[in-house]
């Protein structure tokens, strides 16, 4: 629109033009406000729930709370595993501006070693599950004080009080208790598969071995949760809601820590095992496997160096010899073999064998030596147990045959897991034709049956199996499942452990038990008994059987001289026994590896010493009971 220009302004035309433009402008203004308002409606009404959720996600942090792990007591209420508070230095990497610089500064302040820094790096990569990464597992008071004074210089680094597992008896109980250690990738995988990953949201350690591993479910407890309001810096402002964790259940073990410590002391540096078990219910009073190691290393974070040391040690301290060690049973299984012979009618109470000091299969030149090179003369089943005559058992085994022997021995628990309540167990080997075929793809030779008679050849047993087999004798057939757990304490209520029994060994003639048990008693009481010397003068009765196992076969005409051959080829000394003889309270099994001497001279005296201790410890109580009105 063109306007005529005049020197005199046309005010009305100008006002009209301006007015039209204002109207256009206002239409635009109103439209824009409508658009803005429509957008606000979209955000605040239509998408309200989405944004409310995201707002809550921003401000509310759900923090899992780790339950306190259940404690473990011995049968007399002594604490075997506890949780102690430690101060640890923890880092939240996301909140640290310059991690390298911070680590350097902390290093200077607290004197961190390179290994600790490396460990932190590894943890940081590994422990993605947590915001916080531990830099120092346990701070000394001095370190804590030094850090506290300058804490403001280290945002994202803080001192946290945590509970860590502590085993006051250290290596004395490692193979029974096991230990807890950091949850690793495999554990996470397993927990996920079991669908209980969430329960471990705040847990850093998990039971790996022994009782700690086996009763993980009972010991762990239930995770708790805390809803915390946080600001953008992650500062925790207040707790909105809390669901406290439920602590794990406490365990009471059958272990008697005093007896355990005594057993450990008796073995000393000697590699081997000692087991003391209640034959009636399978309760384990003591279970020592030497060498051992300090489980606290694992509970508090083992260093690579320490672990490598354990792993590579020639004496395999990580092996639980009591349940995983495969030892030739040697003569310790002679009482059971005698029962089998009697049951099968191969021998009678009175049958005799002439022992010239060796045994030969008819038509074969090979001589199977008796440990007594000049021979025992005429022996019957009784003397064969008492004096541990080998020739008698060579003969018996050959007559029984491998099939009969292994079939019977399975019933005593040989060749299968005892079912003890720890995960580390080996079935060892009860050989049979089928086993040899599968293992070596070879037929069974009669000569091998002969060696089976004295518990050699392919036959291996774990000390725990020996304890069970001895309990079967004592119980006249009843076969308990060995058990470390005595009771579970849950909120003050004590739930006794379930006592399990395997199918008993049933004899056609129960008198056969008496014959074998009588022999075992005489091993101790008879002047000719192999353990007589060891138990001379004991103020309690007991019974047992010695064993001396070759760990290397000796050539036909070779002389065995323990002092001269390499230590690892020396004999193993074994002893199985029970006491008191007439009413057995305990079964005891001793194995001592590569000793100078044998079952009678090395293992039996150990059993004597421990049983002395066992009965001496009971004395005061009985005296008190007797004196009571």
């Amino acid at each position, binding site marked *: *629109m063109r*306007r005529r*220009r005049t020197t005199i*302004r046309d*005010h009305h*035309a*100008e*006002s009209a*033009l*301006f*007015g039209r*433009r*204002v109207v256009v*402008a*206002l239409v635009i*203004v*109103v439209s*824009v*406000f409508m*658009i*803005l*308002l429509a*957008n*606000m*409606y979209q*955000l*605040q*009404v239509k*998408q*309200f729930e*989405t*944004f*409310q959720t*995201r*707002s*809550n996600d*921003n*401000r509310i942090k759900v923090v899992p709370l780790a339950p306190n792990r259940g404690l473990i007591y011995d049968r007399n209420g002594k604490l075997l595993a506890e949780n102690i508070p430690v101060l640890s230095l923890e880092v939240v990497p996301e909140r640290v501006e310059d991690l390298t610089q911070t680590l350097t500064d902390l290093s200077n302040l607290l004197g961190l070693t390179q290994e600790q820094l490396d460990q932190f790096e590894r943890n940081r990569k590994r422990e993605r599950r947590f915001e916080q990464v531990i830099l120092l597992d346990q701070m000394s008071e001095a370190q804590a004080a030094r850090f506290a004074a300058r804490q403001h210089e280290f945002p994202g680094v803080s001192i946290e009080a945590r509970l860590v597992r502590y085993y006051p008896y250290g290596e004395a109980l490692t193979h029974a208790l096991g230990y807890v250690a950091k949850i690793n990738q495999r554990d996470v995988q397993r927990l996920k598969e079991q669908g209980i990953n969430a329960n471990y949201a705040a847990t850093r350690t998990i039971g790996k071995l022994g009782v700690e591993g086996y009763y993980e479910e009972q010991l762990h407890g239930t995770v708790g949760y805390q809803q915390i*309001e*946080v*600001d*953008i*810096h992650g500062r925790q*402002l207040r707790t909105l809601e809390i669901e406290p964790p439920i602590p794990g259940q406490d365990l009471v073990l059958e272990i008697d820590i005093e007896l355990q410590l005594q057993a450990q002391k008796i073995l000393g540096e000697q590699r081997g095992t000692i087991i003391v078990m209640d034959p009636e219910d399978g309760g384990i009073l003591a279970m020592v496997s030497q060498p051992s190691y300090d489980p606290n290393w694992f509970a508090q974070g083992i260093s690579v160096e320490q672990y490598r040391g354990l792993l590579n040690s020639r004496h395999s301290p990580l092996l639980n010899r009591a349940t995983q060690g495969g030892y030739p049973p040697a003569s310790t299984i002679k009482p059971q073999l005698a029962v089998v012979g009697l049951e099968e009618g191969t021998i009678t109470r009175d049958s005799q064998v002439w022992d010239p000091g060796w045994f030969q299969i008819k038509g074969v030149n090979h001589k199977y030596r008796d440990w007594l090179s000049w021979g025992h003369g005429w022996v019957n089943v009784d003397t064969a147990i008492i004096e541990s005559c080998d020739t008698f058992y060579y003969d018996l085994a050959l007559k029984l045959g491998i099939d009969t022997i292994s079939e019977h021995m399975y019933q005593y628990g040989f060749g299968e897991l005892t079912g003890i309540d720890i995960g580390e167990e080996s079935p060892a080997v009860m050989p049979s034709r089928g086993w040899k075929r599968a293992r070596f793809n070879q037929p069974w030779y009669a000569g091998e049956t002969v060696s089976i008679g004295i518990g050699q050849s392919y036959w291996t047993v774990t000390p725990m199996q020996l304890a069970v087999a001895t309990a079967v004798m004592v119980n006249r057939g009843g076969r308990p499942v060995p058990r470390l757990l005595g009771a579970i304490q849950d909120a003050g209520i004590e739930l006794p452990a379930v006592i399990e029994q395997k199918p008993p060994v049933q004899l056609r003639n129960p008198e056969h038990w008496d014959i074998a048990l009588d022999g075992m008693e005489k091993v101790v009481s008879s002047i000719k008994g192999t353990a007589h010397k060891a138990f001379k003068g004991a103020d309690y009765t007991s019974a047992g059987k010695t064993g001396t196992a070759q760990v290397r076969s000796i050539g036909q005409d070779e002389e065995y001289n323990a002092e001269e051959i390499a230590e690892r080829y020396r004999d193993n000394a074994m002893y199985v026994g029970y006491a008191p003889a007439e009413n057995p309270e305990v079964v005891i099994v001793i194995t001592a590896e590569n000793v100078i001497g044998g079952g009678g001279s090395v293992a039996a005296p150990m059993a004597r010493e421990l049983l002395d201790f066992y009965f001496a410890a009971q004395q005061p109580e009985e005296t008190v009971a007797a004196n009571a009105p």
Partner: protein
Amino acid sequence: MLPEQQQTSWLQRLHIDPPLFLALLAISVVSLFTVYSASGESIAMTERQVIRVGAAFVAMFVIAQIPLDSVQRWSLPIFSVGLVLLVAVLLVGESSKGAQRWLNLGVATIQPSELMKLAVPMAIAWFIAEQGMPPTLTRLAGAFLLLIIPVLMIANQPDLGTSLLIACSGIFVLFLAGMSWRLIGFFAVAIGSFIPVLWMFLMRDYQRQRVLTFLDPERDPLGAGYQIIQSKIAIGSGGIEGKGWLQGTQSQLEFLPERHTDFIFSVFSEEFGLLGVVGLFALYGFIIFRGMIIAMRAQRVYQKLLAGSLTLTFFIYVMVNVGMVSGLLPVVGVPLPLISYGGTSMVTLFAGFGLLMAIATNRRLVHA
């Protein structure tokens, strides 16, 4: 004429327009409450804001007393002084945060671009009013020249947001003066076709990145998109009724950046909800309508154009800030007028309202 226009109340004598004054007072109260909440209940910051609002009201009152004839006469000289100051900034200005915007005068540090926010519409309105409405093509060309020089200088500081707002204030004068629709259409098409060129050849990578982030903030939730995502969460989680004053978790827990300055609208929306927003928009709408009415009632072309341009520029502030924090426009760093915590721009804004008050009351005095 109506009889009421014959009367001169004491308010008119003081050059105060009651409806505009009351609306500004109301919105300032809203500002103080919102700043108190957004600053994390900081008494110190709220006190400073009280002082600023007070100073701004005083400035408005003082400027409202200046005779409009003088204002019109001094439009070009003021504009010229502004230009000189801009040149001075270019030569001896002080830098802060990578931009050279300030001039140290010894007694005080001033920001010449703030002066130009008023001087540019004044000068262009004066230039157009010299000849009358609608402007001829030559006048328009001259006006564009007056506009483009300060705009480019400020854009070069760099202060893109301010330069665009100043450009708008000038364009609004020309639009209200009756610049032909054909010419407006031509410029619209020209700018429209310039955008692809801008995108392809003139924009740097990081600038393109910023635009992409604006289009989809979730692309970069921890970086550039963070602000806008948190702002939308704050607004959206406010719902219809809001979380309540001081109860906005997004702002109180500091998830929202720049919450007492550019993003104060998000705090307001979170705590007062859609109902509060409607109320706030009503207040803004009222101020804009009142400003346009003042412009319509003004007798002189210069006054009409200046009042209209100042009012529409105020609207642009609101639109850009609200659009920005609610995700409709890119983040450019424009505060929410009259609400955001901060000094200089508030004083400029109230100076502008002072001019509006002068124009509103001047008309009646003329006819008295």
